[in-house]
């Protein structure tokens, strides 16, 4: 089992979700996060006060899935989230030891 953590632009969330649904991926967790990478922040000016905002709003999407579906899922996320400009985000993949579906107590691949 693998976990995909994708940091994407907030307005790309719907497209990414649809792309993953088409692959039959049935669940995901989404959070609103802030961060920065190579994309610069922006400047806000309120009368005489100027503030540089380094942390930009992003969406973090987490999906856990069987090893066999990993590559197609990554391809789908990249395709849907790409604009070609700095700030499109990143995808991190890690191993997951186990999973449990609380309602049925199923374990492993069948639980995700």
């Amino acid at each position: 089992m693998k976990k995909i953590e994708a940091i994407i632009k907030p307005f790309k969330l719907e497209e990414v979700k649809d792309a993953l649904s088409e692959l039959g991926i049935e669940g995901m967790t989404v959070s609103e996060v802030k961060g920065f990478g190579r994309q610069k922040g922006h400047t806000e000016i309120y009368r005489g006060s100027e503030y540089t905002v380094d942390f930009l709003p992003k969406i973090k999407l987490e999906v856990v899935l069987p090893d066999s579906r990993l590559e197609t899922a990554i391809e789908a996320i990249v395709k849907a989230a790409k604009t070609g400009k700095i700030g499109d985000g990143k995808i991190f993949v890690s191993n997951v030891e186990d999973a449990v579906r609380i309602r049925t107590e199923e374990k492993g691949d069948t639980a995700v």
Partner: protein
Amino acid sequence: MKKLVLLFGLAAAFAACSFAANAEVSTNAPAAVLAAAAPAAPALKDPSVEQRLADLEAYVNNGARSSVADTNVSSKVSGSGPGHNSFQMVCAALVLFMTLPGLALFYGGLVRKKNVLSVLAQCFGIAGLVTILWWLCGYSLAFHSGGGILGSLDWSFLKGVTSDPNTDYSAWVSHNVFSMYQLMFAIITPALIIGAIAERMKFSAILLFITLWMFVVYFPLAHMVWGVDGMMNGVWNADAKIKAIDFAGGTVVHMSSGWSALILCLILGKRMGFGKEPMPPHSMVLCMVGTGMLWVGWYGFNAGSAVAADGIAANAFTTTTIATAVASFVWPMAEYIVRGKPSVLGFCSGAVAGLVVITPACGFVDVSGSVIIGICAGLVPFFFVTKVKGWIGYDDALDTFGVHAVGGTMGALLTGFLATSSVNGNLALIKDATSANPATKNGLAALVANGGLWMEQAKAIGVTLLLAVIGTVVIAYIVKFTIGLRPTEDNESLGLDLAEHGEEGYND
């Protein structure tokens, strides 16, 4: 805090003593009234048909009844006039609306999330506190005749302030309505100071500061400029030493609060982390909503200052609209040119600056004058809050100084150049000595007609500035060395909402 409670205890004791003193007076009063009224009562004749007609005309024209000139005659239209009175009550409510919630939201939106309630509490607290002071003796000190600087205590506890008009201020508006209308000005003026010291002053210190400030700065200034025998009341006091004019409060409201705000924020010091951590407005939406309410409420402030639904009020309404609209457009356009982006805070700041600058002028200038005022209001305060403030480096958190002191001072001066008797007959030079108005008698009308009024305006500006600055320095140090001005560092970083009021503005 215990000291503060003690202070209020003392105030209550003072009030009780005054009550007792008044009770003595009032036991004597009916006898005195009877003695005076008994011989006079039978002498009052019924008015002639001409006089009755003249009284009705006086109502329509907002003039005095026949019985004022001929004291032997009664009037068939006694009491207040319904039209003028209803106009004044609506205007009073509009001016209160400027503070609650207009100014509270305008300022509340501009502070950080953790301090939003502290601003609302300060505005609300001032509304209640000042009303009590007004009832106690504030109205009497400001508006009863007395001397050139301060009134007397004869209207303490609003005694004798009834629904009948007081002809010193209006022939047709109830005296109690006039008093409540003026109260709303007395509420918003100290509330404006909050902007400069937002996010870093103890609630108890604010209450004590404002209480003292009302007695030292506001009541005397209101009396000097608007009191019937005030030394700077050029329009209505034939013996005015300084023949200045201030229609709705450029000196009394905006200069006094703005300059006091600067001094208080310098003595108070900067917010923790000022210049190091970002302190952006937590809600520009609330700020814009509050600004809209201020603009609407300001019609009560400016047009209502005519104290009648007459042509002068109509002119004030019009000039207020034009100047505000122009300034609300010029400020963000200046941003557009200088920075490439017109901001919502720019629109809001321009509107408030326009309202401030037109305030002393609105009943004295024509439409062309109001356009000039609007342009100046859009540019000069903009320059102050974006450039000068940065050069000097004081922490006027919400720009009370840059907008209200700079705007109020400029408005008072511009009124000196742009005032014209063509829109306000009270400034007209009247040749016939028997019907001459106070402005003719004290020389104001000649200054308006021939130029030179700006010198009188400059003198009024000087007096206001000195009173506000010296008064604030003294009061601020008194508060600093008794109960202290600032919250603890922990409380300031926690936010005043939780630390001082035990609640939060936003619970998810």
